[in-house]
């Protein structure tokens, strides 16, 4: 598939598609990213993700899923192209504006990125601290979200004393706690057993029904099949497949 040009022109069906895109919280135009000269982690990617949309991002190891997600919260700058997230152009964003953008985006990192020196509660509350949330509210919301991922009883422990799957759930709780407008989850269930995977994915899907744009990178084919959401497949940094949600007409 070829990516549509940004702008206003085009035939009616194109125009409709563009209209949907124009207020989409996440839009990528011809984005390329090259870490090493001559190779591309992302290659000319144009995609748009609507409000309340939930999308699966799949593709083999090294296809560029993580890089795509990183570019959306300004952890990597694209080598080429424009990225609009919540109305801001990431390619042109000043360093000082990045934190404000990130506070509206929840991220589940592939490697969790929990602070070993802080308790679970503190790790999750961190996402509220940076917003200046009052103490009491912070504790309440942290407790709530930890309960949702089934870890409220571990809230005073430290990440290193948690199992892999428990750590992953803490990472998910931190991404959800401040009710972000965009939720990026990188392989969020790689360390969870099948039942927990469904529970957690339901939590994530819930966020989408509340209007959050959700992008989930995953290798789990059964998960993709089960949810029947829009699925984008990357291969060598290119979009090789963009199948709409099975609930909608193709």
């Amino acid at each position, binding site marked *: 598939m070829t990516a549509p040009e940004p702008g206003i022109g085009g035939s009616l069906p194109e125009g409709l598609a563009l209209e949907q895109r124009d207020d989409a919280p996440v839009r990528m135009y011809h984005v390329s990213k090259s870490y090493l000269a001559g190779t591309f982690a992302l290659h000319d990617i144009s995609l748009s993700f609507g409000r309340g949309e939930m999308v699966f991002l799949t593709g083999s190891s090294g296809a560029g899923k993580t890089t795509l997600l990183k570019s959306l*919260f300004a952890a990597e700058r694209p080598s080429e192209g424009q990225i609009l997230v919540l109305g801001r152009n990431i390619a042109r964003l000043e360093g000082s504006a990045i934190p*404000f953008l*990130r*506070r509206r985006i929840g*991220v589940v990192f592939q490697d969790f*990125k929990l*602070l070993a020196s802080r308790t679970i509660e503190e790790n999750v509350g961190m*996402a509220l601290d*940076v917003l200046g949330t009052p103490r009491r509210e912070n504790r309440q919301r942290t407790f709530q979200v930890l309960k949702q991922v089934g870890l409220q009883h571990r809230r005073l422990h430290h990440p290193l004393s948690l199992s892999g799957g428990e750590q992953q759930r803490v990472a998910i709780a931190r991404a959800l706690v401040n009710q972000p407008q965009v939720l990026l989850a990188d392989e969020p269930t790689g360390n969870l057993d099948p039942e927990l995977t469904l529970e957690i994915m339901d939590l994530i899907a819930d966020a989408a029904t509340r209007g959050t744009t959700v992008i989930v990178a995953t290798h789990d084919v059964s998960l993709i099949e089960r949810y029947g959401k829009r699925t984008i497949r990357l291969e060598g940094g290119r979009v090789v497949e963009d199948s709409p949600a099975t609930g909608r007409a193709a």
Partner: protein
Amino acid sequence: MNRVATVIYLLFRTAVRGLASSATTSSAAVVTIAITLVLVGAFTILVGNMRGMLDRFGGDLRITAYFEEGLDLAEARRIAGSVATVEGVHQVVMVTPDEALARFRETTGAEALLEGLASNPLPASLEIALLPEHRTERGVGRVEQALEGLPGIDGLAKGQEWIDGYARAANLVRFAALGLGAVLAVSALMIVSNTIRLAIYSREDELDILSLVGASRTFLRVPFLLEGTIQGLTGGLLAILVLWLGFVAFTEPIRVGLSFFLGNAAPRFLLCGEAAWLVLGGAILGMMGSAAALSGWRGTTG
């Protein structure tokens, strides 16, 4: 307003948590800072005491002006009065011929020299003491010059060796204090900032993760600056404590030895102002060290 209070609370809490969660690193940093400041403090105490000694030591320095023979007392008094107004003169004491003879007998063993004399051949003289800051060759020169023209003054004894010796010693101490003090100050600055830097290196993940969850520049940096300041402050207080203990422990047993060159003056500890500067300096150094370390941290945006 409530939000500001919350943010300030959070910044402090983050700093305190940071200190608590990296207790080993923090305490290593605090110890290093304390040691550095102990050095600076010990040096200050030493120089302070040496200055005090030199002052007392130099207080014995005298220029002697001999009067012409037969000068009457009133005239001698007048001259003494005018000498007292010369710049750098601290005190003028008149010595009569009899006093001079008594002293001469005492200080030289060469009594034979005076045995054959019927009358006292020694003249009356003025003993001129200088202000501390004028106890130099130049200061002596100035007095010399002022006395030169005066009628009734026959000659001068400068105790040249004394002045030389004193001026040398005083310069030596001043120069050493200045040189070592400068090296010490720069060293303390670099050691403290380097230590805090090392302490922060081991916590880069913390900076990275906070930045990734959307911590602003302030939220990211202020807690670390606070941590550095607290570490510096603690180091400073610790240094004062160690210095005080060391001072008490050391000066007591060697009081006898000390009294030899301190006379009956007590060795003195840091002045209040000096101690305050040490603690404040620690805090400032700690903060500056943190700032330097943070400026070296490259954020998570490529």
